[in-house]
């Protein structure tokens, strides 16, 4: 196992191909929940958690069930069902065995079933022909990238909420423009990966 490859996948998912800011995955929860930093962190931790679990569940199914029996065309249906069921299961298990974790993440779990970032990460793992370990690292990186974008943006948003833009730009447009500028900032990372190991 080459650690360098894993590091490249991780850094690329966090910085260069940030799921929200450059791939437009999970924009809705990003804009909806980033108003408050505490919620932003809770939501992102739940996203990381579910992304990892979803990868653990979907990767073996794709490789040992769908590929083996030529059922590749069932991918969309099977994956969305697995993710929806998984979210329900996690909610039940957490409620029963870990009330403290449930009280922290529980409210965000129902939002995960229709979160395109989760579904996106499971499909990217398969499309990118990653091994199981690479997929896990990719999921962790994607989730961490989501957390980073969320935390940074919730900080920016506290300021735009109090700013005084032209009337037609109040609220949603000014928020979108701040995301555009943040996304521009993340463009600065695009050369990092190629030069990371000389």
């Amino acid at each position, binding site marked *: 196992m080459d650690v360098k490859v894993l590091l490249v996948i991780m850094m690329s998912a966090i910085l260069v191909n940030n799921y929200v800011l450059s791939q437009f995955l999970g924009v809705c929860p990003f804009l909806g929940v980033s108003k408050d930093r505490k919620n932003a962190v809770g939501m992102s931790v739940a996203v990381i958690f579910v992304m990892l679990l979803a990868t653990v569940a979907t990767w073996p199914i794709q490789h040992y069930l769908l590929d083996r029996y030529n059922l590749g065309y069932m991918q969309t249906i099977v994956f969305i069902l697995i993710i929806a069921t998984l979210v329900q299961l996690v909610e039940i298990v957490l409620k029963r065995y870990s009330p403290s974790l449930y009280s922290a993440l529980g409210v965000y779990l129902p939002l995960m079933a229709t979160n395109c970032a989760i579904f996106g990460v499971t499909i990217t793992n398969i499309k990118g022909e990653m091994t199981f370990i690479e997929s896990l690292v990719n999921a962790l990186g994607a989730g961490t990238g989501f957390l980073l974008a969320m935390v940074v943006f919730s900080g920016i948003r506290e300021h735009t909420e109090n700013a005084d833009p032209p009337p037609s730009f109040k609220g949603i447009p000014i928020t979108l423009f701040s995301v*555009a500028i943040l996304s*521009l900032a993340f463009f600065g990372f695009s050369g990092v990966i190629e030069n990371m190991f000389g």
Partner: protein
Amino acid sequence: MSRLNILTKGFIKENPVLIFLLGMCPALAVSTQVSNALGMGAATTFVLLGSNTVIALLRNVIPNKVRIPCYIVLIAGFVTLVQMFTEAYVYTLYQALGIFLPLIVVNCIVLSRAEIFAQKNTVFNSILDAISTGGGFTIALLAIASIREILGSGTWFGLEIPVLAAENIPIFVMAPGGFAAFGIIVAIINKVSKGKALKKKEFGCEGCPSAQTCVKGGVE
């Protein structure tokens, strides 16, 4: 509500993307070219037509408690159909849309129309509603894509525009330009409607199937 009203409301007045701010991920991701936007709009409209029709047909059969999983499976089925069709007949579009084609499954516009409209209305009205919502989604995508393609690559539908083609602003084709173009459009809507259209709207919660749990949890 009259049938004509159902058929036309989604285009402008209750546009799913521009007014309700739903389905922003695909709207921003595939709007780099007008032709991709049109393809994505057509694919989503087909899925909406299929899911709305079948859900309206089965509205008295599906048990209330498991309705969301049922809807998701139905929608996923239609998405798979679209995936297979585009892969076989419009392969360039299939490659251009990439991951966002299977992601129609988690597009909240489709699920919210099932939840808000199709499960309570007749088949014919649901079909009208699907045309209206799908049309509105396509209009929104075309609007965003026009801004991005004209400014970003100086073309429209692949046709070169004389002066702009030489003096293009490539950032509009990239990710930041997507957010900015969408911001410009929402600002214009605010200006034209004098702030009425979006006055009480917040990001993506109107008609979102998870809105209730979301509000319950104190997230919004």
